[in-house]
């Protein structure tokens, strides 16, 4: 009898603690709010009048969530940044700071576009997965290299992934100016077009042919679920998290750290490669310099904002997609330069990275802990 009560008690999950709630919900929300307010300050300082600021933010909202077309644009922009951020979040969980999502996206996109225009006569169900896989594989290899360098030689992944980003950019210019990637008959760096059989199907053209939302968003959601499952339901995820939190304990438990580093990087690279493939197969239909739109770098911010949790990453990715889509509307409707969006995005990251700053600025939002004088 005593045994049974004890087991029941021990199996009771405590409610989410106030501290966790503050860290996961209040800090990011406040960060967004404060960034918007300071963004208003920047507009004021650059000579935008107060009514115009109000109009700008209205346009920002209208362009991101105000209509079906706006939502379509938001989700279209959210997909690649979320996919790449999932890979970065996975790295964070395993204690790796992968700055290389941009480079991994680029090689993934190039591989996908190559597969996308090379095979004629394949049905969509074969050609599209093939092109997506090509992108994932290229990204995985591109990321596994710094993983292997770290495992084998101790080279820090921040340095090596940055270097591989630069190499990837130069590789793009080279490949897009030469056959077989360059579009025949063109002299500027642009790839041949992806065949219809390798394009991600548009989802909403039956409502309005202008809606760009494509099947990439479905892939993204599937990947969010997959990464969640991997992290929290598999032995591999257990090893990733253990290695990230306490490497000596992971070693003690018999986990092979070198292998784990390479595997994490490869999976992260595959996700970034998929993000690149999503861009070329779903949105652009071809590759050109800068086709990633810097999503690989924004993804670092998204992974941070999402607290390296797959669901958090999805929410943060949608926020960044909304800022992107809404920012374009803002520029058109209110005449405020889209650079403001970059400022707001950066401010959000500063505030998320500095929870103590948020706590000092808004003591009323942090009830219990703030009054406890520094804890026990």
């Amino acid at each position, binding site marked *: 009898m005593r*045994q049974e009560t*004890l*087991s029941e*008690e*021990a*199996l*009771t*999950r*405590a409610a989410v603690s106030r501290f966790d709630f503050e860290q996961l919900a209040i800090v990011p929300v406040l960060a967004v709010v404060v960034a918007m307010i300071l963004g208003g300050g920047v507009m004021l300082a650059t000579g935008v009048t107060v009514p115009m600021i109000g109009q700008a933010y209205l346009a920002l909202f209208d362009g991101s969530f105000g209509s079906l077309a706006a939502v379509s644009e938001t989700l279209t922009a959210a997909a690649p940044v979320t996919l790449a951020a999932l890979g970065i979040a996975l790295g964070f969980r395993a204690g790796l700071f992968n700055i290389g999502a941009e480079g991994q996206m680029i090689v993934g996109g190039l591989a996908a576009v190559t597969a996308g225009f090379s095979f004629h006569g394949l049905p969509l169900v074969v050609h599209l997965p093939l092109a997506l896989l090509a992108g994932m594989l290229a990204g995985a290899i591109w990321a596994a290299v710094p993983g292997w360098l770290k495992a084998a030689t101790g080279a820090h992944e921040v340095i090596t992934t940055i270097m591989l980003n630069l190499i990837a950019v130069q590789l793009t210019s080279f490949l897009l100016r030469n056959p077989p990637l360059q579009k025949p008959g063109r002299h500027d760096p642009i790839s041949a077009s992806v065949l219809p059989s390798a394009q991600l199907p548009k989802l909403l053209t039956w409502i309005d042919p202008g809606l760009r939302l494509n099947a990439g968003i479905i892939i993204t959601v599937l990947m969010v679920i997959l990464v969640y499952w991997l992290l*929290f*339901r*598999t*032995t*591999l*995820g*257990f090893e990733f*998290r*253990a290695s990230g*939190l*306490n490497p*000596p*304990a992971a*070693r*003690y*438990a*018999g986990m092979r750290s070198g292998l784990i580093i390479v595997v994490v990087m490869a999976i992260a690279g595959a996700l970034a490669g998929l993000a690149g493939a999503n861009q070329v197969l779903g949105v652009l239909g071809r590759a050109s310099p800068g086709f990633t739109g810097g999503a690989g770098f924004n993804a670092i911010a998204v992974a941070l904002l999402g607290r390296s949790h797959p669901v958090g990453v999805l929410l943060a990715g949608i926020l960044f997609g909304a800022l992107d889509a809404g920012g374009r509307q803002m520029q058109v409707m209110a005449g405020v330069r889209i650079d403001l969006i970059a400022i707001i995005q950066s401010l959000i990251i500063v505030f998320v990275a500095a929870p103590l700053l948020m706590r000092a600025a808004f003591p009323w939002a942090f009830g219990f802990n703030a009054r*406890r*004088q*520094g804890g*026990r």
Partner: protein
Amino acid sequence: MDIELRGITKRFGSLVANDAINLKIRAGEVLGLLGENGAGKTTLMNTLSGLYRPDEGTIVIDGKETRFEGAGDAIRAGIGMVHQQFMLVPVFTVAENVVLGVEPTGRFDHLDLAKARQQVKAISAEHGLDVDPDAVIEEVPVGIQQRVEIIKVLFRSADVLIFDEPTSVLAPQEVTEFFGIVRSLRDAGKALVFITHKLHEVLEVADRINVLRAGKVVGERDPKSATEAELAEMMVGRAVRFQVEKVPAHPGRPLLETSNLAALDEREEIAVDGVDLAVREGEVVGVAGVQGNGQTELVEALTGLRPPVRGTVSLLGQDITRASARERHRLGIAHIPEDRQRAGMIGEFDIAENMVLDSYYDEPYSHGMIMDWAAVHNVCVKNVIDFDVRTPSIYSLADHLSGGNQQKLIVARELSRDVKLVIAAQPTRGLDVGSIEYIHKRIIAARDAGVGVLIVSTELDEILALSDRILVMFRGRIAGAFAAGEASLSEIGLAMAGATA
């Protein structure tokens, strides 16, 4: 300087860490503050050193009521604390560390290191604290680092020195030297507070002992007349057995055998130097020795965490010299690691995750690569109850457990599965009397069930209490072997000091 604490009460949420505590600290006297982990000792001293503000009660210094608004106030009032974890800059010299924050400066804010060096020398000479002011902190042993902490406090002209578990990081001979320092400071008229849970230490060095239990002072004793058993009972709240009850061992087949085993340390120097040892089924072999004589490296070589450079290791006749940590684990070797916080558990993992930290990849905890959390949770609940891990839930983070319960968690993980050999390094370091008693009982129970046990400990009392055979390690070699009954303390002590006949 005399200090009186009157009715100090400190609450954290619903937890009352200090409950109306009255305490007197007098100049020229060592007050021993005894209590189990979580009894409220550290909270009380943090209140005294200005880090916490008490919810009720007052601090009276030399008859005057005083309020501290922060640590600065306490330091100005002459109260200095030597923390359990040293707060030193590893790459700075002794002198630089001592003056950090209150640097002597010359014109144009020029840092006067020559003066700092002189002041450090003066303080060390005055109190017999022998240190080289130009030595770099990371290159000196912990015993010296502790002296630097003491000099730091004296440099800020403290009259009251609080030591929080000062001996937990020290080797036995360093403890003796440390006690010498404590006595000389007392004789110089300083008031000292010595916080510990080690009974023989307070009996040896304190002039007066206060015992804390569950946030309350449960009594005051005179060390001249008090006994360890009496103090332990006051601390724990019930009678404590110091003698581990055990029947004579019935050793079976040889289990673990090493031959001419050698391993290197981090600096690539030889740390284990030709060790031959054997552990049989159903016996406890204790490895005694002063910290840093190759015990850490020996344990790592035996558990597969450090590749040997020479020699062999075998288990039941099977050569496992090149086997990985995981292979050895699967062969039935359990490892209770020396540094539980760093290697034995993951603080940000919950108790259930820690319970399967080294067996998650096997049935029933996972099938293929899919974790079966329901199975993990069931086994975890059973182990938590079996091994008396005190926690509100198996979903609590390991970081939130007390040290004793963290160690019980690790012991539960390692002993609950089907093991042949247990290698336990410092299994009770830093734990309270109750937890030590419990863990010792489980280790003897494992032995009686036919498991071979290798205990590596710097606590000679622990080795003597548990072992059927005792080996002494000195400079990487086995410097002496004794059967449990016939070993005298002085013989073992001599072997530990390297004086082999």
